């Protein structure tokens, strides 16, 4: 399998009055062609920032400080804005956002917005691109005759998300990033959309990064799951293993927080709250909330290392391999 994306040591900061928010602190991610990667974690842990960095959409007051983002072998952090627009964004990568209705421009018809994407992708003018719009709309199960001339506010959440998906997939990207594509939608619609996305990426053979805070969603959809905490990747594993055999105490806590129907157990949750990224805890950023924390955790940031085949974790507990516990 070919490597499509390889992010290493990504550091992103936001400069605010309170100080510098160290949003990403050496993030490592990778993705093969046609692979589906899930990124999960609590709010504010840096999922969106990671995704936006990959698209190079971090804006002031944010700044990519350091790192490497190899996309198809090239470091896209070295490209100029124009080159990004000319070759990468909307050509080889596209993105689906969380709130579909607010992610569509309210003053343009859906058809136009999709055509615009197609036009840019294929370097044709919008008139010609329009001819390809019906096809895209049909693909996501929308009645194109009706929906091509609708404005975003005339769509329901589900329809708008379909339109977004149509827009993102119409350019046949190599990499599709979906940042919480369903969390703003109703439960039944969520399921529909995920199923649709699933089918479409299978057909299109795209690689996908799915960002979600819902482990359940991620595990159903993805091949591999990356767990983030406070700007760090703390665990990477394939999606079955992470449930059956979570390694990092944080991942464990996360799993024990999810209510599961039929499983009548107490939910324990994770004590404490997410740290302030202006002055993150020293060492392992999770240590103040960790039941297993020991001295080293307070001093030293654990590195992400492969503990089991294909299963990476950043925790000092496993510096000597897997222990039971």
């Amino acid at each position, binding site marked *: 399998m070919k490597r499509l994306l390889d992010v290493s040591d990504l550091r992103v900061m936001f400069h605010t009055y309170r100080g510098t928010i160290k949003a990403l602190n050496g993030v490592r991610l990778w993705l093969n062609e046609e692979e589906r990667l899930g990124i999960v974690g609590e709010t504010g842990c840096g999922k969106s920032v990671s995704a936006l960095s990959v*698209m190079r*959409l971090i804006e002031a007051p944010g700044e990519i400080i350091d790192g490497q983002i190899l996309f198809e072998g090239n470091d896209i952090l070295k490209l100029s*804005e*124009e080159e*990004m*627009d*000319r070759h*990468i*964004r*909307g*050509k080889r990568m*596209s*993105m689906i*956002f969380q*709130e579909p209705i*607010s*992610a*569509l*421009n*309210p*003053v*343009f018809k859906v058809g136009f917005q999709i055509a*615009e*994407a197609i036009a*840019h992708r294929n370097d044709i003018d919008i008139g010609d691109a329009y001819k390809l719009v019906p096809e895209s709309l049909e693909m996501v199960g929308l009645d194109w005759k009706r929906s091509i001339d609708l*404005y975003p*506010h*005339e769509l329901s959440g589900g329809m708008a998300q379909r339109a*977004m998906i149509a*827009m993102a997939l119409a350019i046949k990207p190599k990499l599709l990033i979906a940042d919480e594509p369903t969390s703003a939608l109703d439960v039944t619609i969520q399921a529909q959309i995920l199923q649709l996305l699933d089918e479409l990426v299978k057909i299109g053979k795209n690689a996908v990064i799915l960002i979600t805070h819902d482990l359940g969603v991620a595990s159903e959809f993805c091949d591999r799951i990356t767990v983030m905490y406070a700007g760090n990747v703390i665990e990477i594993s394939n999606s079955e293993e992470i449930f059956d055999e979570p390694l990092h105490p944080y991942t464990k806590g996360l799993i024990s927080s999810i209510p599961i129907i039929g499983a009548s157990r107490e939910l324990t949750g994770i004590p404490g709250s997410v740290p302030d990224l202006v002055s993150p805890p020293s060492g392992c950023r999770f240590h103040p909330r960790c039941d297993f924390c020991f001295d080293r955790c307070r001093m030293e940031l654990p590195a992400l290392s492969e503990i089991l085949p294909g299963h990476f974790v950043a925790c000092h507990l496993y510096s000597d391999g897997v222990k039971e516990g």
Partner: protein
Amino acid sequence: MKLETFIIKRLFLMLIVLFGVSVVVFVVARAIPADPVGAILGGNAPIELVDEMRRRLGLDKPLFDQFLDFMSGVVRGDLGVSIKSNRPVIKDIAEFFPATLELALVAALISIILGVPLGIFSAVHRNKLVDHFCRVFSILGVSMPVFWTGLLLLILFYYRLGWLPGSGRVGIFTVMPPKVTGLLLLDSLLAGDFGAFKDALSHIILPAVVLGYSATASIARIMRSSMLDVLRQDFIRTAKAKGIGRRLVIYRHALRNALIPVVTVIGLTFGSLLEGAVLTETIFGWPGLGRYIVNSLLLLDYPAIMGGTLFVAVVYSLVNLVVDIIYAALDPRMRV
């Protein structure tokens, strides 16, 4: 259709407001402790003549009756007869309004042409030097007394440089094409008379710039803040993610949205241009409605004050009705 019911409803509301305006202006005008007859007859007129004239004009009737007379006239489309000129007020308005309208339109155009790009520029280069410059430039417009800037510009562009004419709507010896709309720029174009057009244009530039510049700041300011607002929206990120480039993101995706609140402000500003023209009209000898109303007020020419005020209120309401319709055209969410 819905648009029609909307318009009808708005017109109805407008009637209510106009009634309110009439009441207020009537009450306020009558409460001024002066006497129109005395004013019009001048300081020399003997008191008997003043009393006699007052009787003749019906100003000795009970106030309520006078109000009823006035309102019944208004309902019939008759704004009464000016005490001063003894002409139907509506005729006076018809004479003065086109000049004011033309001035206000050109001024509005100038303030839009200046304000919108300044606002966009400021927003796009937020907190950079360009932003500071644009903001200070536009705010300077509202900061200086109109009559002061007016005179300074007059001295500069007319007196010192001689580039532009100093007073009036057209040159004295310019023959104007027949009156169609009353807007000289338009009339001369309609008649294909470019000489006249040039002349009218050169006359309107200074007053319109003075007036328009004073309205620039409010447009630039709202343009800037609404642009900043829009640039923060989710759909801008979507557009960027499409890779269409910064220019298109700003001018296609952001601008159209950002213009929506600007339109409202332009409507409100237009009202202030209509009425704020008094000082400009005085300095540039512009034969407009603003001076007419102010002068009527100084002379306490009740019918003219009431008629003029009502008329301005009508125009203002109509402009804002149009603005709301444009608003809807810009913002599909307002349609349905």
